[in-house]
């Protein structure tokens, strides 16, 4: 049912176009024998007003609109260039500051190292000095002690001779019943000592 209706509508449409076509063609023919575009009587006025409009429009564009647009575009590109320049200037400054900071840091490290070295050297030096002094003192003490020993040895040795003489006298008296004089005993001890030496 729907399809049939649609078909009848389309057919009616085609019929209407067919009916209208000749009248349209007729109307076109009646409208003018020639196109208005080829009516030379209007050429003069069209060219005249075209010239007037075009000249006025050209003057407005060249003296007003275009310079304004150009100015805006130029100002903007100049501003952008300036800003870029400024930004790169700031970056350079920042880089310089960074370099200065790094240099200060390196200097400080260097200085700290130098101080450290100095202090270490100072400590080492004083330690050496103290050690040397101690060694010298110890050597001195040793020497003094040795001297004292030597000093003590002499009387001890002399004492030992006296004891030996007495021992000789006693032994001779007890064993042989001899009375040995002090001088003889002394000579005998001396001789014995000499023999041993």
């Amino acid at each position, binding site marked *: 049912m729907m399809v049939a209706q649609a078909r009848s*509508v389309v057919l*009616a*449409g085609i*019929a*209407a*176009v067919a*009916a*209208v076509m000749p*009248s*349209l063609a007729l*109307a*076109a023919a*009646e*409208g*003018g024998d020639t*196109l*208005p*575009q*080829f*009516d030379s*009587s*209007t*050429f*003069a*006025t*069209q*060219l*005249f*007003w*075209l*010239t*007037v*409009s*075009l000249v*006025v*429009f*050209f003057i*407005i*564009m*060249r003296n*007003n*609109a*275009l310079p*304004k*647009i*150009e*100015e*805006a*575009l130029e*100002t*903007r590109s100049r*501003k952008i260039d300036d800003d870029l320049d400024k930004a790169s200037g700031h970056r350079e400054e920042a880089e310089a500051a960074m370099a200065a900071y790094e240099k200060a840091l390196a200097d400080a490290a260097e200085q700290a190292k130098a101080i450290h070295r100095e202090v270490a050297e100072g400590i080492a030096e004083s330690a050496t000095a103290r050690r040397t002094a101690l060694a010298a003192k110890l050597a001195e003490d040793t020497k003094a002690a040795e001297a004292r020993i030597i000093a003590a040895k002499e009387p001890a040795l002399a004492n030992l001779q006296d004891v030996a003489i007495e021992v000789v006298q006693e032994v001779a008296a007890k064993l042989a019943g001899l009375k040995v004089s002090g001088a003889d005993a002394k000579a005998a001890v001396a001789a014995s000592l000499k023999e041993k030496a």
Partner: protein
Amino acid sequence: MASPIEQFEIHTIIPIHIGGVDLSYTNSAFWMTISVAVASVFLALGARRRALVPGRWQVMTEMAYEFIANMVRVNVGDAGRRLFPYIFTLFMFILFGNLLGLIPGAFTYTSHIIVTLGLALTVFVAVTIVGIVKHGLHFFSFFVPSGVPALMMPLMIPIEIISYLSRPVSLSIRLFANMMAGHTMMKVFAGFVVPLGAATFGIGGLAPIAMDVALTGFELLVAFLQAYVFTVLTCLYLNDALHLH
């Protein structure tokens, strides 16, 4: 029923006759005035603030400027800078004529051969003058194609001259024919709306209306495209005259 051709008729609004020549202010002149006024307001007022950060309106004017400036830079080079204001004027005048002509009831002055021929002749004359100023008499070597045997010259030189002279003709006919054909077609389809609707209880009238809607979109494209083509060809002719082959 109105003829599809009726829209192209010239009607006098203010009769002016000077020295026996009819220079009346007509509907064509009226729409030229409107075009110039609308385009001037759009461009001059849009750019008046010269803002660093442009608004929408200013962006449109700057885009129009950059569009034509790039076209001239690419096709002509820096030498084209001096003719840029005229090329820009030409583009805007044709574009606004084409676009405003699409308003129902408006008159499309670019659909008249005499107007497009006038525009093309200004290009022709300007290009020829630019070429002669730049190259002097050497400009006429333009008509002598390079790398052609001398025997062929009697044939080639007239062909080159004819092709040079036919430039304004093709330039004007292309624009005029496009505008006239588009507007005529729209009127023809519009003319079907009422008779078809009457015959089919209103339903059949929708088809030509839909067609006209599509055609209107298409004509917007053509309006822009033809202004663009006219301007690009102007740039190419200018480039030929400035940089002889």
